[in-house]
């Protein structure tokens, strides 16, 4: 019998799940660390912050948690480009770890950077080919 995934985890073996590159999830939120508040924000009425997730940076909207006093160094939970909640560093680390265990971390990065058109084109080609077969 093959060991179960969690048992593998208990035994300290890393799980490297194969993941279809076309699958994107929207439900899992990604933790990010605020690097800068409102960096060169020219648009009025938009409150943004520059966040960093494993060295990838993106501007995200922080209006949903505008009541929190946010400052660089704080961690937030990001969902579809919006900070949804302020979280502790500890929680952020836990989330990052579960993302990587779930094999979602690379994808989360990809989403954070925005989708790469090149890859998308290739995927479409693959899909057409598959549908032809």
């Amino acid at each position, binding site marked *: 019998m093959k060991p179960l995934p969690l048992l593998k985890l208990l035994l300290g073996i890393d799980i490297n799940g194969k993941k*279809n590159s*076309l*699958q994107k999830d*929207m439900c899992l*939120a990604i933790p990010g660390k605020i690097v800068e508040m409102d960096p060169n924000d020219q648009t009025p009425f938009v409150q943004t912050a520059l966040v960093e997730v494993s060295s990838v940076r993106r501007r995200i909207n922080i*209006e949903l948690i505008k009541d929190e006093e946010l400052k660089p160094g704080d961690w937030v939970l990001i969902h579809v*480009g919006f900070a*949804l909640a302020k979280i502790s560093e500890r929680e952020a680390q836990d989330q990052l*770890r579960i993302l990587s265990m779930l094999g979602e971390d690379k994808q989360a990065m990809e989403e954070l950077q925005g989708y790469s058109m090149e890859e998308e084109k290739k995927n479409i080609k693959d899909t057409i080919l*598959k549908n032809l077969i």
Partner: protein
Amino acid sequence: MQYVDEFRDSRLIKKTIEMIQQLADPTVHYRIMEVCGGHTFSIYRFGLHDLIPSNVELIHGPGCPVCVLPMGRIDEGLRIAEDPKVILTAFGDMMRVPGQTGSPLVLKAKGRDIRMVYSPLDSLKLAKEHPKKEVVFFAIGFETTAPATALTLLKAQEWGIKNFSVFCNHVLILPAIRAILDSPDMRLDGFIGPGHVSTVIGCRPYAFVAQNYKKPIVISGFEPLDILESILRILRQLKEKKSEVENQYGRVVLWEGNRTALKLLERVFELRSYFEWRGLGFIAQSALKIKKEFSYWDAELRFGTQGITLTDPKAAQCGEVLKGVLKPYQCKLFGRSCNPEHPVGALMVSSEGACAAYFHHVYQKTEV
């Protein structure tokens, strides 16, 4: 990472499993529903269903936004994209969901302008950049995503962006839970409550589950230990004959939820009297509609929708799987004509869909 040890502590996990074994009465068959697709994914990924006693059955709920979208709505959105002036934008996990005439990805390959976006605000930006085009955002998702759409609509109004509109398919988790509780073929003992939806709505709205239906509900995080602890808490409540709303995910979810987000929802949306859910049928007041004040940006009004309802392919049993009546592998198409390469139903597309999660983490592993 000095903090992670506690969660990774295998002893803690083993201990929790032991405690679950002690609490679960072997003569009782427990049925616990995890509402959120993220939990389904975690459960299969870590094989949690195999670690708990076999009389504690985990039932997968309707909390996967693309899975519950009926085919008619997908076709309706794709029909809007037929207009050569339209750029249809959608989240990545929508791209492969099959409509009757094909998925957004297939139609994109046939020449329609359909683009993936990461955030609804990116769609608005796209509209700004392409003033001659009509940008339509295919909005899906539960209370987690709806505030982002609400804010985007506010911005569209504020900035007077006229060539942008939203095809709104936002649904609410609570009416779905109620529908499942009211469904005659369902017998459930408790719920693992959704984590990230609750960061928005908080814990209070679940009170009806505990008070009216007398079922325990524990809002849970996504770590293996979180889910196991939530199962333990549900079993403990059942043993003590209690039914309460508990917040296991207190480190992220506030009891009150996110007020700003809730106010935004109220400002921009109102309840639809009915909305069709795949598998669950029409549920009263279960989805959001754009308010009159913002109707200018409502794609349904701008392009006119026809209220298409389509029945799923006959042999597909997505409905039963969504309701938790059948397990993914009990669907006649599972692994045969329906697989992640050629999905028949949306549950096979999103990795939060029960069928895809089962296929990737259990089925494929045992087949090889």
